[in-house]
């Protein structure tokens, strides 16, 4: 389920009650809700935290249009190639031949197409300002992921642009693997397809050009 909430300098220690105020949107609609917040209270810092089914399946329209309007909030997209909360169904990000509860014989790309690369897709729009794909599979990646997320929030606080940080992640439970195996599988299977990197960084480009 997508969640949209307002972020202070640091989140509260209370895991279920973010501060200074939090809202939950329906499955897929967090970017629309974040748009609503930002349009009436541009001073508040807003981010959406969304999973595969939420962002790439049911919420496709909302994320594309929010990104394309250049709504000045931040989206963190956790891509683990499967629906998590509803119990491991096939997502648009599920890999070819990957088995899930609704693709028990493996994702058949002839039948349902190739996995959607959300960062690449959003980068095909003109407007969005900052798009990066990161991962948290190993400590060496985490530093970069942290930097990306920080940058996304700085751009928001500077009212610069829409920011999108995709985080390639694991889902041992729904993959039916040990945490260790799932890290290996993600590195071997997900990272070659979901290439890490910056897809767009308009504020940085503009800064360069201004120099």
């Amino acid at each position, binding site marked *: *389920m997508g969640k*949209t909430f*307002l972020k*202070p300098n640091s989140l*509260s220690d*209370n895991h279920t*009650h*973010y*501060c*200074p*105020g*939090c*809202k*939950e*949107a*329906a499955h897929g*609609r*967090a970017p*629309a*809700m*974040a*748009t*609503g*917040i930002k*349009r*009436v*209270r541009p*001073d*508040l810092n807003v981010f959406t935290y969304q999973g595969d089914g939420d962002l790439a399946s049911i919420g496709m*329209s*909302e994320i594309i*249009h929010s990104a394309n309007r250049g709504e000045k909030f931040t989206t963190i997209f956790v891509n683990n190639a499967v629906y998590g909360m509803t119990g491991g169904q096939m997502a648009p990000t599920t890999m070819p031949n990957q088995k899930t509860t609704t693709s028990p014989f493996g994702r058949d790309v002839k039948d349902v197409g190739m996995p959607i690369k959300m960062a690449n897709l959003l980068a095909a729009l003109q407007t969005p300002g900052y798009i990066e794909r990161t991962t948290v599979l190993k400590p060496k990646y985490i530093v970069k992921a942290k930097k990306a997320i920080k940058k996304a929030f700085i751009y928001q606080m500077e009212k610069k642009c829409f920011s999108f940080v995709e985080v390639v992640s694991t889902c041992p439970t729904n993959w039916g693997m040990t945490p260790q195996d799932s890290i290996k599988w993600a590195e071997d299977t997900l990272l070659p397809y979901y290439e890490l990197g910056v897809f767009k960084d308009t504020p940085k480009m503009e800064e360069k050009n201004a120099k």
Partner: protein
Amino acid sequence: MAKVLMKGNEAIGEAAIRAGCLNYFAYPITPQSEVAEYLAKRMPEVGGMFLQGESEVAVGYMLFGASACGERVFTTSSSPGISLMSEAISYIAAAQCPVVFVNIMRGGPGLGGILPSQADYSQSVKGGGHGDYKLLVMAPASVQEAVEMVTEAFVLAEKYRNPVMILGDGLIGQMMEPVEFPEKVAAKPSDKSEWATTGMDTRKSDKRNLVKTLFLDPEELNRHNLMLKEKYKKMEAEEVRYSTYNTDGDYKAVIASYGTMSRVCKTAIDMLKKEGIEVCMIRPQTLFPFPEVAIRKAVEKKSCKLAISIEMNMGQMVEDIQRSVSGIVPVKWYGKCGGEIPTPEETAEAVKKYLNNEE
């Protein structure tokens, strides 16, 4: 203030601004697109905000987000567009956000037609989204009344922290009528510090507000629903609105009708009076809460033989009339739909036939 001649859709937009609502999200759909077109020009003049959403589904959640921040916000749409907002409406009601919706109804079901209709009565009053929730539903019969109801809708929405639906038919949106805007409209916004996620800085508070609709603990969800139920009961006790017509004499039938259709009924009642046939009308101005007691009392008059629900649909209010009259008199229905508006002559004829037991 002097009267001005205005199209209903534009007057609705202006009324919202004067009611202190400077935030408007909407998606184009006939026959209400003029509201967005009017406000696209007007909002910048008053420092307000208009955003055309990418779909009605998205607009529903934009409203939710904006309202959860404690800001006044509204939308306008028409029948299929409201269906697309059904999920969001259920969320907004569950989260107790005071969003105002305006539905300028068109002919249905499906794509239907673009002419006036009242066929979303059941959707607004009974069903719509999933779960136990109620909208406060108001039905204006003129452009003037639409303006007044929009004004009041924001006050009621905030009083109850509940979405309000203004249910107008296509005629209310499309026709031009002289309209006077209320002098003092921008009622003081209610205190939202207890619930709205306005940001800590703004509120200067340590309390962290959370707007949510998820209650995984069944006891908690049951309590939440009981609390909502109490709220709806309070509306039923305090917010029923209706007007009456020709109720003094010994009428033979009670007509129940709302919105544009009720104006046709008035003319029909005058025509029947000239023929010596007395008929009265109860016009619900709120569809929820419903004027059950008024209708029940009206049919209790000894001369009354009949109640007739007259609607621009296939008989959606009939069930509420049946509940209200509790078997005291038979309940009939007359109406047309999909843009066909019964004439006063046809309406008078239908009433006479029922009174003569011909149907």
